[in-house]
């Protein structure tokens, strides 16, 4: 369970202050598949970062599992992101100089998984996302859809409790988008993984059990 309590996040841009989140209360249960929708600049990515411990709120609290992570150290958050959370970003989230296999291995490397073990697991994960024949390709040698699938495989490397995907299908055609969504749905159903995804696309949101709408840094009406 992830619980946000009166979360405020403001960005200081020189003299102007941007309030990206203006007091968000939110609860996401274990095993849920949730979609977050809202106009551009409404604070979706900011919310996503806070949910996964990539960022911390200026006010309010974020409880992950049974721990308040809003005041934890940088190392604590790094550990949380490495072990319990998987991120998929919208674009260019692979290390460009590494092969698909190396990219998927990287999160396991930071957790000290032995080389041979993580190599096998990375290979297995890439096969799962249908890229068994692209193991040694670099990101530039992969299509956008393939890159997103590598990113998804990487997010799953340490078997996280929560998968956070920021517009994972944003740059993809509907067929590749559908493939990614099928994979996420499958993970949610078979493994009980909590999946939270940001999207602009109502069809994509249709896969979710619940859609959260966000406008101008505030949660709007939840439509089931």
């Amino acid at each position, binding site marked *: 369970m992830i619980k946000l309590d009166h979360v405020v996040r403001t960005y200081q841009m020189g003299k102007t202050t941007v309030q990206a989140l203006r007091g968000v209360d939110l609860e996401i249960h274990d095993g849920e598949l949730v979609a977050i929708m809202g106009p551009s600049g409404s604070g979706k990515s900011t919310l996503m970062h806070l949910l996964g411990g*990539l*960022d911390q709120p200026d006010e309010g609290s974020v409880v992950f599992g049974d721990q308040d992570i809003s005041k934890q150290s940088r190392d604590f958050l*790094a550990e949380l*992101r490495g072990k319990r959370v998987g*991120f998929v970003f919208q674009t260019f989230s*692979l290390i460009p100089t*590494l092969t698909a296999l190396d990219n998927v291995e990287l*999160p396991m490397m*930071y957790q000290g998984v032995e080389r041979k073990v993580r190599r096998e697991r990375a290979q297995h994960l890439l096969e799962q996302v249908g890229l068994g024949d692209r193991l040694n390709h670099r990101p530039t040698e992969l299509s956008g859809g393939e890159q997103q699938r590598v990113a998804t495989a990487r997010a799953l490397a*340490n078997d996280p409790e929560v998968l956070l995907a920021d517009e994972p299908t944003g740059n993809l055609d509907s067929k590749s988008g559908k493939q990614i969504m099928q994979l996420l749905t499958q993970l949610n159903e078979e493994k009980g993984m909590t999946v939270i995804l940001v999207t602009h696309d109502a069809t994509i949101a249709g896969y979710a059990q619940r859609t959260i709408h966000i406008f101008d840094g505030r949660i709007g009406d939840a439509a089931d």
Partner: protein
Amino acid sequence: MFRDNIRLAFHNIRHRQVRSWLTILGIVVGVAAVVALISIGEGMQNSIEEQFESIGYNTIILSPGGSTEQASGPEGRMGVLKAMFGGGKPAVVDLSVLDRLPQVVSFGAQRIETGMIASENLDGQAFLRITGLTYGMTDYFNAYFNGFPIAQGRNFDQSDRSVIVLGAQVATDLGVAVGDQVQIETTDFEVIGILESTATEGKGTGGAMTFRGMDTGLFVPIESLETLYGGEGKISQALVEVTDQTDVVEASQAIKNLFSQFETPVQTITAEEMSEQMKSVMASIQMTLTAIAAISLLVGAIGVMNTMFTSVLERTREIGIMKAIGAKDRHVLSLFMIESGLLGIIGGAIGVLAGVAISSLAGGVLSGALAVGPGSGGISVSFAASYSPWLIIGALLASFVLGAIAGVLPARRGAKLRPVEALRYE
């Protein structure tokens, strides 16, 4: 994890080949210069030591004039320089009083003048340094004259006056052979001997950079200089051999005291003092050069720092990704520090190889030797380099540490980036 980071670091360096190599080049130049200079310097020191070992330390060098100070301080230094280049302005010194000292085994003197030289096969005339020797000098102090090896003809007899022994090079230049005449000022001298060329002695090519004095020496009996230039009993320098049991420093002082009663006081220097002074002169020249080389190494390190700052900036987004998937600050820190350390040690390794190559090449080109000492030719400072394992290990270690230190600031900047901001960086 550390091993993985080393692998990643290698990968990153390989990936930016041109920049990496240019950065490494900066280190290579510095390390090569330092290694070359130190190894040549060490070689020189060893060569000085070996030469004095073989000559023996029981010789005292005596020059007219000067104070009674020891051979230290600026005046002492001057004395050493005088001794190294054949002595000072000729002055009258009665050496026969040396017989009063029981420690003295033998002694001899030389007088150096510059004279107008002519020969049949030489167009015009030449001003050259002429060395007048007392009889037996080259036998008693053979090593100081590089053995005085006669290639053709013979050495001096006691009764010889207007005769001359030539170094190999000067004989060629004057176009004379044994039996020919050489004119000094207005007097004819018969060439009775020509020395072996020192350039054939093995080391080097004997090319333009040969400093050896013996090849260009003109040797005559000291009495003939008295006839030419006057000044009976004048000498530039004397060599005194004492018995092996003698305390050379005491003997040196005794000689000084002895001569202080006479008109011309003398300055003395023991072979050991001379060896020490030569080594210390060499060492300070070497230190200066090495310090300059070290500055270029520092510039190389700044190059590494620059490259690493650029790298951190370029890879900001990559750092954000690494952090998003679980990298801690110290993982990022160590990755960048290893990268810069690797740049350093690769540069160091190539630099050591280049330095060894340069110094052995330089040793060959500079061929033999810089000749100094009485007789101007005996004590030759070889340029053959000497490589101690410590120099090589030290150079490698220093270049790694320097590289890593140069990486500290950039790596810290990378490690401290906030993940969200890093991810937004374009």
